[in-house]
């Protein structure tokens, strides 16, 4: 007689448990827990200096946490060796706050970089993919031959997005994707992010303090404060969170329980 099948809960694509990270005496992350399911778009909001970038860098492995675990597809990734870390990185795509394009390379070489250097793809094939991805973010082939310094901030973000999606990663990270852009360009970038994430069926983790952006790209929003996630829920519920911290942040009020630090710690 066969045993009845027991339904296993789905393993989150990303599972963070007890994540702690300090810089000197300043504890930035304080036992933070958060999950992100496959094909979900999670946006983490929070004020400047609350540790959003530190969180994303700990998940990516760019910073080593002091304690806690980061599981990707159920595998603990904290303390992986460089070879295993490089393999794990093949799952990731990242759009940096300042775009982080390589000055010494042309635009298409930037987009193709992960394909040629990270995956050993032939240069010509990678070039074709790079131009496809540039077209996907609304940039013509003439842009591909320019240097990053010749582009506007909005165009640089588009190129950075094309680079992030070039290898069609399973997980995309967006660090303040609309910072420094005018509202129209910010909306264009938000639309492109939604389109790319849905098109790839990828899991997306974004950090931002731009609520317009958060509402547009998130399936679920989590708020980071004092090193912990103090609220999380579907995007539609952000306006009825019943959380004074979330309420103050969402409405951008100076008065409330959140006290901004004037000096860096």
């Amino acid at each position, binding site marked *: 007689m066969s045993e009845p099948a027991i339904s296993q809960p789905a393993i989150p694509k990303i599972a963070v448990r007890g994540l702690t990270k300090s810089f000197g005496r300043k504890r930035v992350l304080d036992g933070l827990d958060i999950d992100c399911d496959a094909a979900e778009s999670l946006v983490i909001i929070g004020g400047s200096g609350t540790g959003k970038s530190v969180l994303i860098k700990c998940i990516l*492995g760019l910073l080593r946490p002091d304690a806690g675990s980061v599981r990707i597809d159920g595998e603990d990734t904290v303390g992986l060796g*460089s070879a295993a870390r490089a393999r794990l*990185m093949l799952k990731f*795509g*990242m759009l940096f706050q300042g775009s*982080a394009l*390589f000055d010494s390379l042309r635009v298409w070489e930037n987009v193709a970089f992960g394909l040629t*250097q990270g995956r050993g793809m032939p240069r010509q094939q990678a070039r074709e993919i790079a131009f496809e991805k540039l077209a996907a973010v609304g940039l013509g082939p003439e842009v591909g031959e320019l240097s990053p310094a010749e582009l506007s901030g909005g165009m640089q973000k588009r190129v950075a997005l094309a680079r992030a999606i070039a290898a069609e990663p399973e997980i995309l990270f967006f660090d303040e994707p609309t910072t420094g852009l005018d509202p129209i360009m910010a909306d264009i970038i938000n639309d492109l992010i939604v389109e790319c994430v849905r098109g790839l069926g990828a899991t997306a983790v974004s950090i931002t303090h731009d609520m317009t952006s958060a509402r547009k790209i998130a399936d679920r929003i989590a708020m980071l404060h004092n090193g912990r996630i103090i609220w999380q829920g579907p995007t539609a519920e952000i306006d009825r969170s019943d959380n004074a911290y979330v309420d103050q942040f969402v409405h951008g009020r100076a008065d409330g329980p959140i006290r901004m630090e004037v000096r860096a710690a």
Partner: protein
Amino acid sequence: MSEFLAAVGAAFLAFLAGVGRLALFTARALAAGATPPYYPQVILRQIVYMGYYSLPVVGLTALFTGMVLALQSYTGFSRFNAEGAVATVVVLSVTRELGPVIAGLMVAGRVGAAMAAEIGTMRVTEQIDALTTLSTDPLRFLVMPRLLAGLVTLPLLVAVADVIGVFGGFLVGTYKLNFNPVAYLTQTEQYLATSDVVSSLVKAAVFGFLVALMGCYQGYHSRGGAEGVGQATTYAVVSASVLILLSDYLLTQALFAQ
């Protein structure tokens, strides 16, 4: 008194920690470079940048050093009728010491500073993090090619600098001090041993490695925007220069001490 000792102790511990960090960085970079991929195009670009584009400044410095050395040694030796030793002094001084040291210091100023500024800017603009997220080891892609270029290029530069330096001495010796050109060249060739040339190239390889190492190390660990990059550039040049002079003494001791 105890406060003074504590301050000295803290400074010494900080120095040891710095040496440890540098040693770890070097070991990690060498270990990363020992396995593929090797990025030959990046290495070649660094060799051209470090070597070919440094030729004018190194050549000019070597030329004037040889010329000044001939003049000064003539002035000094003429006091006890030993002018005939000028050619020997020029060739040995330039080959054993001045060629490698001056080329090393010039390259530290030109290339070490540029390396620190480039890698430092990449650090503060998150380009190094971007490399990691694109499955590319920054030590393998950025640091190892520069270390290799330093190791290979400076001996070539110094070989050229030695020749130009000796030629500078020859110019002054024959045109200004009225030495017989054939006698000058014969004396130069007679007293120059293979070990002198080998020691010159060994020193150059060590200096080239140190220049690249300090440029990469300071740039890689720069923090805090433009000011941090500026500091990294200064530290790269100063630390490379000090290490060149220190290692020059140690190498001279090892290579020539009886």
